């Protein structure tokens, strides 16, 4: 049991480190949001599972944390992405931009 838990914990730590590295290395804000959201979500999941293997009686609370993270993280990052596009425009290196027609102007379309 300890070995399984340790493996999950190390995978979690690894994905956290990769998420941080992604935030650091990616060239524009949207790619950073992608790296930050995904890698850290799986990192958090991994660590929660690892802890749940060691302490099975905590699994209810750990499940709630996982549920909240998986619900809130994508919502937060997409809100952030929209705000970034609104306020700073799209990145310069995009190869295709369908969003411009929707969010490009300063007036709200809604």
């Amino acid at each position: 049991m300890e070995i399984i838990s340790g493996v999950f914990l190390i995978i979690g730590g690894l994905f956290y480190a990769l998420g941080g590295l992604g935030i650091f290395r990616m060239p524009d804000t949207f790619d950073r949001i992608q790296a930050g959201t995904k890698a850290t979500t799986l990192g958090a999941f991994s660590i929660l599972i690892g802890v749940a293997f060691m302490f099975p009686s905590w699994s209810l609370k750990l499940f709630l944390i996982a549920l909240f993270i998986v619900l809130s993280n994508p919502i937060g990052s997409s809100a952030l992405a929209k705000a970034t596009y609104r306020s700073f425009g799209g990145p310069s290196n995009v190869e295709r931009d369908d969003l411009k027609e929707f969010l490009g102007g300063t007036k709200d379309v809604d």
Partner: protein
Amino acid sequence: MKKVLALVFVLVLGALIMNHLNDNNLFAGFGDAMLENRVSQSYIDRDATENNDGVVFDESLDLESGAANTVTAIVADYRSFDTLGEVTVLFISSFGVALLLGQSKKRIALEFKPNFMLKIGSRALFAVILMTGVFVSIHGHLTPGGGFPGGAMIASSMLLLYLADDEFRAKMRGFKILESVMGVFYIILGLAGLMITGFFLENFLDNGALGTLFSAGMIPIVYIIIGLKVGSEISSVIDHFLSEEGA
């Protein structure tokens, strides 16, 4: 004429206070505090079971306050009267915001529409946040937290709805009624303690076994009251800041 009256009144009051300060009648023992008798030291030295045989979760019955969280025991039991004052301070500040910003009817429309995902997802997350706030308030005597953080969580769930939904506006009347009713409940609880034990806000309920939900006497009730009161106060502050005056 009014100014002269006010001056006379202040002078008389000042003279009274100075007189009593000199006699040491108003503040008994003022200026000669004895360090070994300080309140904090006596809390540290105190023993919960009288006979030093340790405290066991789920078994120890009828402890002095019965709360697993010592900070909660101090805030909501030993120093409950001070906490009543703190809640009053918060009430006055929210009242002051209401006075300054005026009775507003229209909600300020944020310039940009919220994200679709945020708009829909907040309705589900809102329930979880509200529930956590209530949970933190109820379990103040068992877990870290208590009424004040719980109330802040309740208010933050309202803030989430305000940010995520342009049309949302909480029913302010409901909040005001809830806030007042909770304040009255706190006083009634204190008066009940006065009636039954002879001291204002003294615990008059069974302490129960340490570490279970129904333990610690009045502390959970006090913290539920504080949580709802703080939550409604901060929510009304948020509402006032996000509303504009006029029609």
